[in-house]
């Protein structure tokens, strides 16, 4: 969705990514022992759930990376948003929970609180990067630790189990793990949400002034300054958008876990999210990346993680394969880039 390469080369790149996705899926579909059910409905359901979380967060990460930044706090922000959601839904004394009285309003409030918290983390990230002029890697490394700490603090270092009636509310059904069918029209609501958000963001990046400014900022900050782009404001907004999507991913994660809050979940998630964007063609040097590519990257990452388990690979094999795929994907991208110029 960057306006960079010629149309034909853009289509070619996309086809290459789709082919890689198909190859990864086919690899596991063929090689996984039949009894493990890699292609079964239940497993497909499971993968759709995992994809939703990674893909939602990856949309925000792509914007941050295009703008020349990085957000290591994404995993912790997901956890904090999930804990915030659970915390709000668990408000009220035992036996007389608020959610019983306000089954519609309270989930909305929970989502608003979760997003508010994660957007605030994004604001801090952006503001500190801009005002202190410290590289985003360091700032978000700090906020990653802090957000994780706050998640544990809010949860009192325990899992939060909101009352059972939450299980039947829409917020838990965004990604109901107990159902072995794709539900709603064809796909879980969360998947539709991701598709909608991806489409909206892709159009936003391509057709709005802010979108064009984000590419310019990531490609060359000095040029952006020279051309009158409000760089400080744009940067802070970019990290806030990143936080927004981490927050949404946190709400989905809450549903994914069966409507509970676990403060120690989603550790290291930022790496999957970054990997999804990078496999999708985003450049950590900034100025380059597409939402569609990132979505394909998120699919590849999720299939790899799921397939590795189904194949009965030990943890270390999964890690080695995952690492190799990331390196190979980026290497191929680099070679293609060099070939063009």
């Amino acid at each position: 969705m960057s306006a960079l390469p010629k149309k034909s080369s853009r289509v070619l790149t996309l086809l290459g990514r789709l082919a890689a996705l198909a190859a990864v899926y086919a690899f596991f579909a063929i090689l996984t022992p039949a009894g493990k059910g890699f292609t079964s409905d239940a497993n497909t359901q499971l993968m759709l759930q995992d994809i939703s979380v990674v893909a939602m967060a990856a949309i925000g990460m792509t914007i941050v990376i295009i703008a020349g930044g990085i957000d290591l706090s994404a995993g912790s922000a997901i956890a904090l948003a999930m804990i915030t959601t659970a915390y709000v839904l668990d408000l009220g004394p035992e036996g007389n929970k608020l959610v019983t009285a306000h089954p519609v309003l309270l989930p909305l409030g929970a989502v608003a609180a979760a997003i508010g918290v994660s957007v605030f983390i994004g604001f801090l990230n952006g503001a500190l990067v801009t005002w202190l002029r410290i590289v985003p890697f360091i700032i978000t490394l700090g906020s990653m630790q802090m957000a994780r700490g706050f998640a544990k603090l809010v949860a009192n270092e325990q899992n939060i189990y909101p009352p059972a009636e939450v299980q039947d509310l829409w917020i838990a059904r965004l990604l109901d793990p107990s159902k072995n069918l794709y539900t709603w029209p064809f796909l879980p609501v969360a998947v539709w949400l991701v598709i909608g958000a991806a489409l909206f963001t892709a159009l936003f990046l391509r057709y709005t002034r802010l979108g064009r400014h984000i590419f310019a900022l990531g490609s060359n900050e000095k040029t952006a300054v020279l051309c009158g782009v409000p760089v400080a404001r744009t940067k802070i907004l970019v990290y806030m958008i990143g936080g927004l999507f981490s927050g949404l991913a946190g709400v989905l994660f809450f549903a994914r876990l069966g409507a509970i809050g676990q403060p120690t979940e989603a550790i290291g998630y930022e790496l999957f999210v970054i990997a999804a964007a990078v496999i999708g063609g985003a450049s950590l040097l900034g100025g380059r990346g597409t939402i569609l590519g990132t979505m394909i990257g998120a699919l590849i990452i999720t299939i790899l993680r799921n397939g590795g388990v189904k194949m009965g690979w030990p943890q270390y094999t999964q890690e080695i394969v995952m690492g190799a795929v990331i390196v190979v994907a980026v290497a191929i991208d680099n070679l293609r880039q060099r070939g063009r110029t």
Partner: protein
Amino acid sequence: MTDSAAAPLLTVHGVRKAFGATQALKGVDLTLARGEVLALIGENGAGKSTLMKVLSGAHAADDGEMSLEGAPYRPAGPLHARSLGVCMIYQELALAPHLSAMENILLGIEPTRGPFMDWGRAREIARRALDEVGLTALDPATLVEDLSIAERQLVEIARAVAVGCKVLVLDEPTSSLTQRDVQALFALVRRLKARGVAIVYISHALEEIEALCDRFTVMRDGETVGAGVVGQVPVHRIIALMVGREVADLYPRSPRVAGEPILELKTLAGAKFPRAASLTLRRGEVVGIAGLIGSGRTETLRALFGLDPVGGGEIHVRGRLAPPAGPGARWAQGIGLVSEDRKTEGLAQNLSIAENLTLSHLDGLGPWGLVRPSRQNAAAEPWIKAFPIKCQGGEQPVEALSGGNQQKVAIARLLHHDCDVLLLDEPTRGIDVGSKAQIYAWIDKLAVGDPAAGKAPKAVLVVSSYLPELLGICDRIAVMTRGVLGEARPVAGWTEHSLMLAATGQDQAA
């Protein structure tokens, strides 16, 4: 040296080199004698760099023959070429900044005693090499990062001297040097020449070539299109060879009428430089600012444009006070700036031409304030045609263009924005003569305006270190000396000599 002077040291015959479908060299011939300085000239993209890379072993030729001292010369790589005595000094210096001058000089040729470094001999070799290039006062243990650009360049030449080079290639060696350093470099080149070293000197500056070189060879489109003895061929012929057509007048100057003042600086000061810059710029005028590097010329433009803080003084735009503001506000006031550094500041290299060209002015490119990429391309198209910018279309990334065409994109941004005041900082630095001529023609066109098409004359303020250019295109020139801008006087009253005197502060009479 018993060889007769007639036997060439190095010959290149029919060398060809292709990169994929691009034929970079289509048959190049070159001869080089001992103790000779050969100027290699041509526009960017003519194949000079490729030829030099073939010569220094970085690329292997596809076809053709080379010989060195009568023997076939086929370098397997840069190290091999060095060991045979062919050394290359690139424009971007290739030194390790965290190592000392000595360590850099000896890189790859470290003297050893058994398995150990022989530091005594190392110091001796480094000392001798540094002395030869004129760095007699430099401690060989100084870290390269603590050296000035000029000193680094000399260290790099010392590295070539230390391996006993016979052929030294200098690629645009003066592009980042001050006038004094240039003179020191010229003296060194003459010393090496007297010792029998053959030198290939690549430069865009024809007056440097006249001052230093014996013969010249011109390249165009991967071929050698002409050669001759410097001084025997008039400059306009050389330019015609480079460009492939006659350039009637490098500095066109239509009759211009200075209109109302549009930009006034009143003792403008920056954080450090400038200290006091006063100037009135009118529509229909091209005003130049001359001065030494570091005298505060660039800083004046940057403070005025809001890229650097303003320390004092006033800026008036169209007769109204314009308080210090950021670049965004300046663009809105109809002022545009072309940065002296198009690589790291002027252009976003991996974005498209259209993206770069429209970045400051994305209005009107779609409904409801949206920006449609197709409209961005359409907006860039007329400028690509009019300049013309040599490219495959507005969607091509800027990094794929030659320096001259990149610079045209940077200037076209101001035209797309329809700025009334154009601030141009070193607008033609390091670009080929053809592009220079086109840029000069545009500056003239903008200053004159086109009443028939409803285009009012623009005001242009040019900072340049290239005096012939300033004298050629400006109506008035002011000289900056240690942060203070002198009076802008009509160009007829200036000569290169008087400009230099004023720049060095010896023009007290003024």
